């Protein structure tokens, strides 16, 4: 549904994205993950026909984003990061305007349908300027769904929302995603984990990793971490555990008597640690594994990509 090949965009001399290649299948929810300034918005703007790439090609639903821009725009629904709407218009007025620009057939019925889809029926007559951020986000979604697009592009759809709204919007995206291809960007990893079928991690304009959230986690599953808390001084505990076989690293934890232990992949050091602590005459208070989150993967990947801090001039 979305096919991107060698996409590159320069703002002046500064590259925003470099040689990006990826694809999204029909009906897939593809997560676009990266820190701020990684090039997510730029990529989305190219795919929506807002700006052309410096080089490379991108097709959406089989149409080239540069040469057949109008055809692409007819098939894409887009919610930019800031959800730019006209505050002085009412929700219905706004949808009528966007719908007529998009030549939506039977517009009134469609407006009713999308308002129901995003659960906004009661606020149909409200002025957009009086709506909360979460409601405005839904107006943005309604606008993007009006013409029943094949592809939905959502730029940071949950940014700036409160936790309850975030959960609602995510649920909404999953509902919508059952029948459509969705490309959504986020820098919240748990969001990608929850919502997406596949995740692209992008940093400094290039793709670092491309996989399903489950696979990404499995990759690092071997390198599990343990938290050990004992009634002892932290330094004592570190010294004690450092030379246990199968332990790669021991670092001091947040509180007195707590250490975090990284194990070598494929080993379970828990029985050994427990025995060692008790044999040393200390009271073991807690011993648990910490699951590796996408956060860890992300930090690890993006850190590796970062250049040295000091660059000679």
């Amino acid at each position, binding site marked *: 549904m979305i096919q991107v090949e060698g996409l590159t965009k320069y703002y002046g001399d500064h590259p925003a994205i470099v040689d990006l290649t990826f694809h999204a299948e029909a009906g897939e929810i593809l997560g676009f993950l990266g820190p701020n300034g990684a090039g997510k918005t730029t990529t989305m703007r190219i795919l929506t026909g807002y700006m052309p790439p410096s080089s490379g090609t991108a097709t959406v639903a089989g149409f080239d984003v540069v040469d057949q821009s109008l055809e692409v725009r007819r098939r894409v629904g887009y919610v930019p990061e800031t959800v730019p*709407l006209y505050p*002085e218009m009412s929700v219905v007025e706004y949808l009528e*305007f966007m719908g007529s*620009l998009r030549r939506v057939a039977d517009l009134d019925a469609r407006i009713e349908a999308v308002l129901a889809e995003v659960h906004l029926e009661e606020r149909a007559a409200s002025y957009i300027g009086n709506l909360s951020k979460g409601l405005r986000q839904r107006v943005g979604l309604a606008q993007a769904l009006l013409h029943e697009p094949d592809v939905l592009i959502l730029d940071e759809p949950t940014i700036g929302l409160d936790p309850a709204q975030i959960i609602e919007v995510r649920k909404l995206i999953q509902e919508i995603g059952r029948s459509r291809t969705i490309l959504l960007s986020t820098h919240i990893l748990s969001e990608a984990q929850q919502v997406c079928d596949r995740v692209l991690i992008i940093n400094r304009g290039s793709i670092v990793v491309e996989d399903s959230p489950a696979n990404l986690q499995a990759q690092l599953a071997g390198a599990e971490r343990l938290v050990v808390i004992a009634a002892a001084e932290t330094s004592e505990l570190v010294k004690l555990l450092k030379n246990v076989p199968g332990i790669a690293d021991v670092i001091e934890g947040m509180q007195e008597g707590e250490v975090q232990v990284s194990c070598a992949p494929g080993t379970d050091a828990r029985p050994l640690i427990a025995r060692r602590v008790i044999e040393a005459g200390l009271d073991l208070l807690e011993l648990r594994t910490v699951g590796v989150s996408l956060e860890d993967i992300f930090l690890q990947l993006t850190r590796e990509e970062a250049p040295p801090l000091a660059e000679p001039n």
Partner: protein
Amino acid sequence: MRNVWIVASKEFRQYFISPVAYAVATLIFLILGGIFFINVYFAIRGSQIDPDGRLVLGPLVTILLFATPALTMRLLAEEQRMGTIELLLTAPVRDWEVVVGKWFGALLFMLVVIAFTWVYPLILNRMTSPGIDQGVLVSAYLGLVLLVATMLAIGVLVSALLTNPVAAFFVALALLLALWIVGSLGSGAGAGSLVASNLSLVDHYYNNFYRGIITTPDTLYFVSLTVLALVLGSQVVESRRWR
């Protein structure tokens, strides 16, 4: 073409809920009404009324010089500042349709305002015998519409260039004023003054339309300046995509 109409009608409706548009309309009607009243009042006291619709049109043109930039300043500048242009330009709409639609919406609003000012010549016509020269009136109003269309197009162009509506107002006003006073350079002799006079917004209006003479060169001047400004405006909007 339908997209032009959709954008235009949105802008037109927008003016009726915009404080700026009401301020502009109030300004026009207040000043114009005041001028009209004073003129008629003193004419009656001197028991001599000059039967001329231009009593209204002269000051109206001057007011419009300041009013049109106020109407066009936010058309594109605000869309660019607020980011709403992003959704507009990712809808299946061509850039020029957006620009022309914005301009046409503003023109429709001005036409409504101008139509209301017709009431003053009507009053004047009733008061005087044998009435005022209707031919001059029609010609002067026709010229006025062309003049306003041109001024609005220049305002839209400036609004496309800038992202700050207030800046857009002052730059558009400065441009219009420059085109306004360039004619006064044309009072001398020689090729330079001829060029200046031909560039002037006012000369093309006051010299013929205002006197009841409709000529092709004057009409062409306004039409081509309007088209030029709108084409440039579309180019500016399109160029933003490439930055």
